């Protein structure tokens, strides 16, 4: 992701009220993750796996923060237990801001199967999802995510297409 896009997305997250971030370094997201780590607008925690990350975000929400986890597509697969048993069970929202490894146009062979199941996985988890391929539309989508999080008290997902992460 371009540095300028990372800064735009980071500030758009903060403008939508997000103030707590968990991250696990990802190839397509490291510029955004670095920006979050250095930003005074966020408390950012670097985690050891995404299930741990979403659980830390649950605690942050209980304390009044608005949490986002910035993660790889595979991280959503890894975090499903925590998303269901922690967030869905208790009714705790979180934004999953992820890449779309294995989405249309991705040339990495190892990502194909992960990407192929992502939409159905999120649907099965009853997590509303929007795939965004234009960074200019992201600010309003982030505000929509906040609206749905506040109303549903359930996780929400925004998936960043390769047109954003790989340009």
């Amino acid at each position, binding site marked *: 992701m371009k540095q300028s896009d990372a800064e735009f997305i980071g500030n758009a997250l903060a403008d*939508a*009220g997000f103030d*707590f971030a968990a991250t696990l370094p990802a190839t397509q997201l490291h510029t955004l993750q670095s920006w979050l780590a250095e930003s005074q607008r966020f*408390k950012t*925690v*670097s*985690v*050891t*796996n995404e*299930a*741990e990350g979403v*659980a*830390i*975000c*649950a*605690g*942050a*929400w*209980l*304390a*009044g*923060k608005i*949490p986002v986890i910035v993660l790889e597509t595979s991280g959503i697969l890894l975090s499903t*237990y*925590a998303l269901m*048993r*922690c967030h869905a*069970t*208790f*009714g*705790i929202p979180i934004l999953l801001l992820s890449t779309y490894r294995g989405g249309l146009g991705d040339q990495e062979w190892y990502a194909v199967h992960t990407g192929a199941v992502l939409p159905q996985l999120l649907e099965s988890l009853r997590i509303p999802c929007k795939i965004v391929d234009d960074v200019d539309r992201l600010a309003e989508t982030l*505000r929509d995510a*906040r*609206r749905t999080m*506040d*109303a549903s008290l359930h996780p929400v997902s925004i998936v960043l297409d390769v047109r954003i992460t790989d340009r």
Partner: protein
Amino acid sequence: MKALAPMITDQLVVTNVARTGFEWKMAAPREGNLYTMAMGMVTPVVLGLALSLPHRGVIALDGDGGILLNLGTLATVANQAPPNLISIIFDNQSYASTGGLPTATAGKTDLVAIAKGAGIENAVGVHDIKTFTETARAAVAGNGPWVIVCRVVSEKPPVEPKLMDGRENKYRFVRYIEETEGTTVLRPSVVGRKEPTI
């Protein structure tokens, strides 16, 4: 649990599944308890609370099976180093609530050594109530993060009180935080399409 209960003032306490929650509710029933957090998620949830409310004590009542499910969180606790976090791990060397098969701590695994290796200086193993009471008192005073591994025997509590539904528990826990912190956590739905509450 009975030794810890008198030390609780306004700390937030999150418990593991099954007997840990039952016994803590018997020892210290209060609005600042969140019971039956998922295995492996107790200490991470408490870490999120600790980082977000750095002026307030937070306590995880975890288990050996739970922490073994998510050992990486000890490294995150060490590196974030919240001084207000205490993780008490009741190590009964078994998955007691699901049939009693042994955990890794029944074999060669040492949770105190793992916590110390993760970088948590105040990682302590206790084997009796007197040492636990002294250690917990020091931990409640601050200078965390603390990991207190309590070697306990696996036995059923005399009564298993019903715990409330997790959602009701969450609402009451959150309302308690809102009231005592003067903050807003629950941001109710609005009529029409308005800007989200910041």
